């Protein structure tokens, strides 16, 4: 099966996991500090720390790759899950409005959520924790406007 081409494909920002990354660094720093003090690092502690750091890193990467959103020539695509995959495609004509949800912490770090609401009273699409959500909305609106104007010369966005 030929791989489908999208105009824009996005995933969660790694900034979402900043607290987990800080925890991983604290664990590594704690091991380094114990070593610096001249104490021998216990094997169990080393294994536990290794499992936590590697496990946390794997978890964040798998969690990040689990969901993605894309803008295709026909509409907005949402894919969730790895094993139980759920792909939903919404035509541009069904989209009523877009809004950005950015609490203070996310605003500082430059990421946030985008709510894509629909004309029909059904579940909206929530694009979670993406980098620069305003820019994504601008791009989506630009493509939607082009499509609505009936132009078919939509080009791939770098």
């Amino acid at each position, binding site marked *: 099966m030929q791989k489908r081409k999208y105009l824009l494909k996005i995933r969660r920002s790694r900034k979402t996991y900043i*607290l*987990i990354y800080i*925890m991983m660094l*604290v*664990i590594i720093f*704690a*091991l380094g500090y*114990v070593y610096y*003090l*001249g*104490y*021998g*690092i*216990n094997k*169990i*502690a080393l294994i*536990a*720390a290794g499992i*936590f750091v590697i496990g*946390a890193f794997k*978890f964040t990467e798998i969690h990040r790759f689990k969901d993605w959103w894309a803008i295709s020539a026909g509409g907005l695509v949402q894919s*969730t899950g790895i094993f139980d995959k759920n792909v939903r495609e919404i035509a541009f004509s069904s989209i009523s409005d877009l809004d950005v949800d950015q609490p203070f912490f996310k605003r500082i770090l430059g990421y946030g959520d985008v*709510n894509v*609401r629909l004309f029909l*009273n059904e*579940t*909206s699409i*929530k694009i*979670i924790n993406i980098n620069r959500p305003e820019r994504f909305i601008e791009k989506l609106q630009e493509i939607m406007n082009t499509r609505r104007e009936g132009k078919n010369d939509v080009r791939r966005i770098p």
Partner: protein
Amino acid sequence: MMYEEYHNKNNPHKRNHFGRKFLIFILFLAVLGVIFFTTIYEGGFTGNSIKEFNENNSVKISSETNIPSTTLTGEHSKITFDISSNKEMKLEGKKISLDKTSNLLVLEGFSGEVNFDENSINLLSGKVSKIYINGVPISNEKDVKMKISLDADILYNSISFKNNFPVSEINFICSGKVNVGTDSINLNQDTCILKNALGEFLVKDKKLFFSGSVTSLDIKGENKKVSISK
């Protein structure tokens, strides 16, 4: 149904987020706890550098006990090993064969890690300023410390730590005898905790001999509880 209510109820991302974050945080605290708990309560000798030692606050003792499994890290002014097995030693990457049945190794200005139990030396790795192998001195011309490592599981006759060897804590299950002044305490599988020990250690004939000062001595066992400090 209002939009927000409908949206929140049907959004899979809203569910279980707090539980997952809480679980990760609990795991994080558990790993940190394991690191510090195992560092503080490690049995045997732990961390051998004393930051402050005041003779006025110390008690003079001597002891003759069994040998705990011991790991020493840090700097040691003088360690003497009487090795009884034919093994190899690496000094600055060069192999030196210890081919005699009894080899006397004196390490001066050693910094690194030593691990031994009552039978053998399991690890010796670090840097040394000067080394005497059966009385022959070896040192670096540039007065730079040399890398040294020994094969694992080397049998020994004795190990001695001289020149007021400092150990911050000795915590082990011991059997033997501790002398405090004129008093003598017999030990039989009792927990022995010596804090800030400074003196000479000799490991010989499957016994650990210590002579020096400690800031506190705690002995806990069946029907026995002794706590000595000045």
